């Protein structure tokens, strides 16, 4: 059975790619091994960390728990397709700017999941951002900056100038205590 190969035309990042792969391979394996799209990461491999998240028909799914054989005719988007020409996507720009990527291993899955969120909800609250990213683990762990980066990218995509949230009080006086 291990010789059982599937031939499919996959739509990945707007291109149609003919691929031949072992039928039991996951979308993650096919993206990385057949198409050399290694931006999508192997994390826990059991659907518990979100490092392998990609978009299928615009919605985030875990590519480690999806069979590539089921992907014919679906639009697949990976981090490699996030850039707009030579320009970073606003999410990429804010993640890079705010250091929301530390070791960076969880970053592609988070970017793709956040992209789907912003497509559906251009003005997400902090809670909505956290809910959308509930399936993505960051061990470094940049959660705080990740929420800020998504928030800021959303503002920029709405055409607002947007500024990152006020930072720590380094070099400036400590504000008064919060009111009781």
């Amino acid at each position: 059975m291990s010789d059982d190969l599937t031939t499919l035309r996959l739509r990945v990042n707007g291109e149609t790619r003919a691929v031949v792969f072992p039928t039991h391979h996951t979308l993650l394996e096919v993206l990385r091994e057949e198409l050399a799209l290694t931006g999508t990461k192997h994390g826990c491999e059991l659907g518990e960390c979100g490092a392998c998240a990609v978009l299928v028909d615009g919605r985030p799914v875990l590519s480690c728990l999806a069979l590539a054989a089921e992907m014919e005719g679906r639009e697949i988007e990976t981090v490699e397709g996030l850039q707009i020409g030579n320009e970073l996507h606003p999410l990429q720009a804010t993640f890079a700017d705010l250091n929301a990527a530390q070791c960076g291993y969880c970053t592609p899955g988070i970017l793709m999941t956040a992209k789907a969120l912003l497509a559906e909800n251009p003005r997400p609250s902090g809670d909505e951002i956290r809910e959308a990213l509930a399936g993505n683990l960051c061990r470094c762990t940049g959660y705080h900056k990740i929420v800020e980066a998504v928030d800021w990218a959303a503002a920029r995509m709405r055409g607002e100038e947007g500024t990152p949230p006020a930072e720590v009080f380094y070099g400036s006086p400590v504000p008064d205590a919060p009111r009781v």
Partner: protein
Amino acid sequence: MRPFDYARPATREQAVQLLAATPGRAAVLAGGSDLLALMKDGVVTPERLVSLQGLQGDHTLRFLRYTAAAGFRIGALTTLADLAASEVLRLEHPVVAETAGRLAGPQIRNVATVGGNLCQRPRCWYFRSGFGLLAAREGASLVVAGDNRHHAILGNDGPAYFVTPSTLAPVLIALDAEVVLLGPQGERTIPLEKLYRLPLAEGEREHDLGPGEILTELQLGPAAGRQVGTWEVRQRETLDWSLATAAVALEMEDGRVKRARVVLGQVAPLPWTSREAESFLTGKTIDEAAADEAAKLAVQGAKPLSKNRYKVQLARVAVRRALLAATGLDREL
């Protein structure tokens, strides 16, 4: 993951035939979020996967239909995200939509199906570590002797000590949902509650699905004025399994309970209906004292294992809070 034959039938009947042709060695692939994880861990090793994603035309199983008279017919391949987003479901059964929207994480909800949620395998860490569903060794349960902090406090006379994983099942059972099963002998419709059974020997399943049988549809009647509430205790805000859940549905008449359903999840090897709480509540008006008493009765028969005493408390609190949520009393507290 070990290789397998991959079949992608176009009709439901073909799917059933493909499954029945290799009984015990074939598995149904719906969303894949549980099955593929089990296969990667080597916990199950099916030789054939029968995908339901290729069903065509009238055979597709991703649908959600509603009529005011009969309520909902929900195809087994409807995703949890579909449920959470369904306007009509949110209006008629908001608690069901909310439960679906709280499950797992967003990426899982986009692929995990209603049928898969109801048929998913237990999360028991002995089972997932490859010790078998009953985790027995030389006739003795590893669970009883080992770390059973997440295991059953009710219905745990053995040999099963795992807990039922679905948080959707309790609320659906409380709402008297039914499921349609299609097998080689045709179709049957059973109460969802009857889908679950206690396995008595290793190799037996915790679901009453015959060889070749697939769950095709969930049927859920209209709300019909029932007061419905759930409470889920889970440790983390993000992506976590429940430690205990309770779902209640109350048919009211003149301010009193005419009929009560009280169903707990994650406390027993199957969704646990508390007849004691249900009969106590019948004829009562719900106030805090009644909720307290019903909650106490719901866990009256609990027999905690060595490390899960705390779950008795969690189950009790879940029932109490579900009752208060159903009757709106939680907002007054």
